[in-house]
């Protein structure tokens, strides 16, 4: 490298000055870009700055019950009439379940009461804090007589494969499932869950990406 440099003709002082200035401009541009992108991300996600957000993928003020909807029930193929029918039950089943459960909306409401403040953190780069109320998963496991298990597959009523098939189920490992704040949420920010947010119940767990917080829960398979 050094030899190569020595072969180059020497720059005039004016050229050297120009090269140094050009380098400073480049570094300045990188620093400015980084600052602009950092501000763009912060303004999209930090409450006090949201009014300055020009490139957010979601906004709290354009939302349902204070939380933006990613996939609407209509697109997921979930019908309100189906989940309101008396036949609809959320089942707790699987090889590790001695006493399978089948719970209707009223059964879930009777068991509800645990509250937690947890965000929906979407892999698309937005995060919105929310207050949830519902039934802790570990209470359901205790009621079903589950003593030992490896993981839980949470399945959704979602039928359609668009926009992502990943939304139709989530895998909860043991530690996640037993966390006191992991629950089947029935209320969001004090209101009954909207159908677009996963009515009658959606999974809410700490430290899970939004894509794994399964909506319209149909079944918990404990393995």
């Amino acid at each position: 490298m050094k030899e190569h440099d020595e072969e180059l003709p020497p720059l005039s002082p004016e050229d050297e000055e120009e090269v140094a200035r050009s380098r400073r401009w480049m570094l300045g541009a990188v620093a400015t870009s980084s600052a602009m992108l950092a501000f763009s991300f912060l303004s999209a996600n930090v409450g006090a700055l949201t009014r300055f957000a020009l490139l957010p993928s979601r906004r709290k003020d354009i939302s349902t019950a204070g939380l933006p909807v990613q996939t609407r029930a209509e697109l997921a193929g979930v019908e309100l009439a189906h989940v309101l029918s008396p036949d609809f039950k959320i089942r707790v089943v699987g090889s590790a379940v001695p006493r399978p459960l089948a719970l209707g909306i009223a059964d879930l409401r009777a068991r509800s009461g645990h509250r937690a403040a947890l965000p929906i953190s979407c892999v698309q780069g937005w995060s919105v804090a929310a207050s949830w109320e519902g039934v802790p998963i570990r209470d359901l496991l205790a009621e079903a007589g589950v003593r030992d298990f490896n993981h839980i597959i949470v399945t959704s009523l979602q039928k359609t494969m668009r926009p992502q098939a990943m939304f139709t189920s989530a895998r909860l490992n043991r530690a996640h499932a037993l966390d006191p704040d992991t629950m089947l949420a029935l209320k969001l920010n004090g209101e009954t869950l909207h159908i677009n947010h996963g009515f009658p119940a959606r999974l809410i767990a700490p430290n899970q990406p939004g894509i794994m917080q399964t909506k319209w829960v149909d079944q918990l398979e404990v393995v």
Partner: protein
Amino acid sequence: MSGAGEWRRLPRVLVGIGCCVLLYGLVGLLRHAAVTTPVWTAVRWILILMTNDLVLMPLVIVVGVLTTRLPRAFGPVVRAGLIISGCVFIVATWGVIGQIREVQPGNNEILPNHYPTSLALILGPVWAVLLLVGLARSRRKAGKAAARPR
């Protein structure tokens, strides 16, 4: 600490830390294969690398070379503008494309802003300032050239 000698180790230490982080990611990728789909992830990463090396990098080099043909006062200024615009555009692409081809028609909670307008509001002032700086540099250079003894 022996000054320069200690600093020379820094790149190796940073590479070591980077390798540890990569290894941690790889272990996580393989341990949770049902969720991470390692084969698809590998295909995606290869595609990203190829896009970077075969499309983005040559494009940046060609544009960089073209900017050397600009008047000296404007070269660095235009390059700075292009770097800033490129970075901002990458972030805005999601929104701009989402408005061209709606993911969920009627769902105004997805991509709620008008992103082409946002892009203009961000990059308009940036280019205006850079243009003024370029003009000032050009005038200063012309002044210096005129003042130089012949």
